[in-house]
């Protein structure tokens, strides 16, 4: 089986400060990988390099495209990369406002992504927008409201709908449940798990919440000071952490 994403030796520095370095891994279709670490450990830098939001200093991010097979997205032309990020890729931001257009209606937010890939029939677009609002548990009657009128949890669900409507194969998520209260978080986790299974999505999820990765991620990568210090199966890394930092991280979780 060809990996969906092959990451080789990614490095990103900010001046003399190392954002992340020596990162390599393969992600296979249907796999969900979690990246954990404290803030400043380089996990978001890495995610942004992978998703094409930041140019890495060195390294390859090879994506298995439908049309041409594996292609290095770092050296790909800007229009090609933009096309990829509208079709096969999706990016769920920590703050829904960064991933939504706040001055456009909920339906418009979802429809915009469909139009970007060439959909022009208003009826179809609206129908799919309503369908996706339902899937993320937003009532149909809110379709014409702007996201500014939504709660934080609803905005986050709308952002997920907007991202998944075009049927991406790889979803990048930056703290998707951060800042949400626990009841909303549980519903969102269930929603994401169902979508991952039904759509066969692969996902890379950056978070500092170990409970979230235990439920969502198959594999885990632990980062510290820009380096990957440990990788493995999620429950193996959490139940039998090998690296000193991971042991500290796991033993520091507060029990409820």
């Amino acid at each position, binding site marked *: 089986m060809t990996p969906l994403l092959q990451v080789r030796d990614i490095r990103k520095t900010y001046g003399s400060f190392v954002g992340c370095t020596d990162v390599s891994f393969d992600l296979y279709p249907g796999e969900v990988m979690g990246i954990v670490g404290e803030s400043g450990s380089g996990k978001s830098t890495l995610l942004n390099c992978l998703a094409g939001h930041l140019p890495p200093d060195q390294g390859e991010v090879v994506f298995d495209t439908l049309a041409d097979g594996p292609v290095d997205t770092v050296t790909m032309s800007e229009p090609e990369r933009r096309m990829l990020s509208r079709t096969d890729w999706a990016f769920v931001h920590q703050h829904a406002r960064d991933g939504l257009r706040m001055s456009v209606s909920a339906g418009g937010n979802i429809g915009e992504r469909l139009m970007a890939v060439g959909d022009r029939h208003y009826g179809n677009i609206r129908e799919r927008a309503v369908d996706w609002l339902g899937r993320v548990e937003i009532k149909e009657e809110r379709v014409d409201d702007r996201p500014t009128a939504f709660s934080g949890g609803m905005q986050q669900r709308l952002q997920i709908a907007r991202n998944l409507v075009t049927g991406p194969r790889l979803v990048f998520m930056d703290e998707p449940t951060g800042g949400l209260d626990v009841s909303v978080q549980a519903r969102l986790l269930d929603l994401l798990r169902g979508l991952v299974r039904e759509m066969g999505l692969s996902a890379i999820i950056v978070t500092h919440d170990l409970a979230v990765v235990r439920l969502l991620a198959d594999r885990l990568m632990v980062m510290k000071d820009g380096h990957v210090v440990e990788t493995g199966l999620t429950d193996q890394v959490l139940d*039998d952490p090998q690296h000193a930092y991971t042991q500290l991280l796991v033993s520091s979780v507060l029990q409820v």
Partner: protein
Amino acid sequence: MIELNNVSKSFTLHNQGSAVIPVMEGANLKVAPGECVGLVGASGAGKSTLMRLIYGNYLAASGQILIGDVDVAKAEPREILELRRKTLGYVSQFLRVVPRVATLDVVAEPLLAVGEDQAVARDKAASLLAQLNIPERLWGLSPTTFSGGEQQRVNIARGFAHDYPAMLLDEPTASLDAQNRATVLGLINSAKARGAAIVGIFHDEAAREEVCDRFIDVTGYSPQVAA
């Protein structure tokens, strides 16, 4: 089906003075299809450790852990995931689920994961829950609010939903009443009859005698403490 060769395990506690705690040495085990092997030994002897090594939760320090032709001690995460999806089932003592997911869906999930049709998976889940005396009015609720015994039965239903060729059972009959205990033993015996290789921990001696073909005392795998 399940074969362990010379498996050892130690824990290194980096944040507690880098203490190295050897917990297992020279563990050997062979379980054939249709056979149930009971792990025995005092509390702390390493029964659960051995189970977790087999399931891949714990990383073996050395040795081979073969499930079919996959060596869990060396396999890539995705190979272990595939193994857990199709081949190796685990009924743990604790239920760990996404909050707010209905019990019926919790039980059906392993079947959906192997690509079973939604309706078929739900039917199978419903029949298991009925067999284990979980009242139908609870099926639509999340098991996180259930009593300990109910949670355990949901866990067992989930563990037996898919017909795994190899199974690990950690105290499946603890805290169950006589009737449910008999149902669980029945499930174990029918799993054996269809050819599943089973490794189990049973503190309940009567249950142990009823389903296990032989016993392994894990005390023999404890590292010898230097005098």
